[in-house]
């Protein structure tokens, strides 16, 4: 099953469903309809035993995150500040998507563990730092002292090279 987001095409063989979560087309079966109220991850993939939430940020494509082509020092600073807000954005996208799916109670998504994959074009050295922060902020696992179940099973931040290395069965290519 192939699906595209933010300049990338993903392929998930054997997936039950894979779709753009924030679909703006009212006639689409995956029409979101709450974009004015809730944030959304780019893709939702239903595997037989797991659900994937996938968010893509290609910093080299949009000017917002392209530090090297910033025309001035101030422009670079502004762009880096945007990157600092990224973590918060990623957290809210996950939580709102989780709530939406819970309320949607979609067939094929009954209480499966949810795994959050953030495909960001970051250095390898920054991936672990971002992953750790995100896991703490989502939070992953049974984080609350009274929680009986977790909000998410796992969360990783990875760049396209790491995706290809870690997930050979899930092909990724730029489109």
């Amino acid at each position, binding site marked *: 099953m192939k699906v595209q987001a933010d300049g990338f095409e993903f392929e998930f063989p054997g997936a039950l469903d894979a779709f753009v979560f924030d679909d703006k087309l009212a006639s689409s079966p995956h029409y979101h309809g709450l974009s004015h109220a809730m944030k959304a991850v780019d893709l939702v993939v239903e595997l037989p035993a*797991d659900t994937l939430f996938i968010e893509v940020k290609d910093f080299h494509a949009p000017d917002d995150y392209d530090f090297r082509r910033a025309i001035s020092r101030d422009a670079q600073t502004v762009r880096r500040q945007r990157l600092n807000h990224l973590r918060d954005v990623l957290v809210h996208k996950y939580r709102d998507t989780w709530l939406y799916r819970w309320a949607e109670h979609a067939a094929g998504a009954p209480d499966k563990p949810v795994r959050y994959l953030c495909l960001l074009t970051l*250095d390898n*050295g920054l991936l*672990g730092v971002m992953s750790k922060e995100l896991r703490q902020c989502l939070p992953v696992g049974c984080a609350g002292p009274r929680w009986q179940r977790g909000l998410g099973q*796992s969360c990783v931040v990875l760049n396209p090279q*790491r995706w290809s290395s870690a*997930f050979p069965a899930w092909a990724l290519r730029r489109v």
Partner: protein
Amino acid sequence: MLDHIKLERFTAFENLNMTFSPGLNVIIGENGCGKTHLLKLVYAACDVSVNQKGFAEKINRVFLPSGDQIGRLVKRRSASSTGTVEIQRTVLVAGKPKPLSLRLSLSNHTKEPAKATLSGAYKQWQEHPLTSVYIPVKDMMANAPGFRSLYSLRHIHFEEVYADIIDRAFLGTLKGPIDKDRKRLLEILQQSMAGKVVTRNEEFFLKSPQGELEFTLLAEGIRKLGLLWVLIQNGTLLDGSVLLWDEPEANLNPKLMRTVVQILIELQRLGVQVFVTTHNYNLLKEFDLQCQAQDRVLFHSLFRDADQEIQVASFSHYDDLQPNAIDDTLGELADREIRQQMGDLGQ
């Protein structure tokens, strides 16, 4: 400023051509790729322009081959072979740039430095002194008392870079007031180490409002900042000088790396040619974050090709740096973390 180095069958190198940035040169590579050897060769070439020593003699003293046999620096082979080192620089003669080169040739049978063949513009090389500083990985500031006299009197097995750095640190202060640029750099360092360095009887102390602390009681990272402070304060690192620093990150808390990189970039802007080797991602990333478009920087990656020979690839932008042994290692760590989080999914 040094422009270029060419090596043939010297130490670990079979054949290497490397062009330097006149500003900042950041060198990465796995262990055994010759980063320190490169730094020592550049340093030797700079130092002979000032100290009037022979190039071969200086190379022998900074590399310290067994039995002082300089021929041992020729790349090992089963048969006889010769090795060469050639370094190029540009000097100003009557206001015009003039290229100079220094070339040393030796065979693996050459026992004494005097038997190695020196060619090129050696006389002119020495007519244009090039002040340089080599900061080795191990701190020597705390070991300074008595080391210089011991080194000059006895044959102790220390590469000469260790004695030289102490000599540089003990140089007297320049006459006249400190210019505003150097003053600014000194203040940045003073802020990070919460004091300034004073010397008494060949011993270094960090002087702060709380009193004077001998260097042996200081964290090694602070000693490094202290050494940098001394070299700037005594005028060693001035416009036109060369700073070579082997792994500044050794014993340095990552928080201090920002200051170290800031100082190195500022020195480059003041006209110092800087060479730094590193294995550290934080340090490398600091250069990427702090360098501006007008900075003259080259990132050099030393790596072994399919034939296991050392090659170099140089880039103006950190993002283009490839192969990047530091990033590759972090990538492998990231892979293992992904596997830990995701189990067998996607395999």
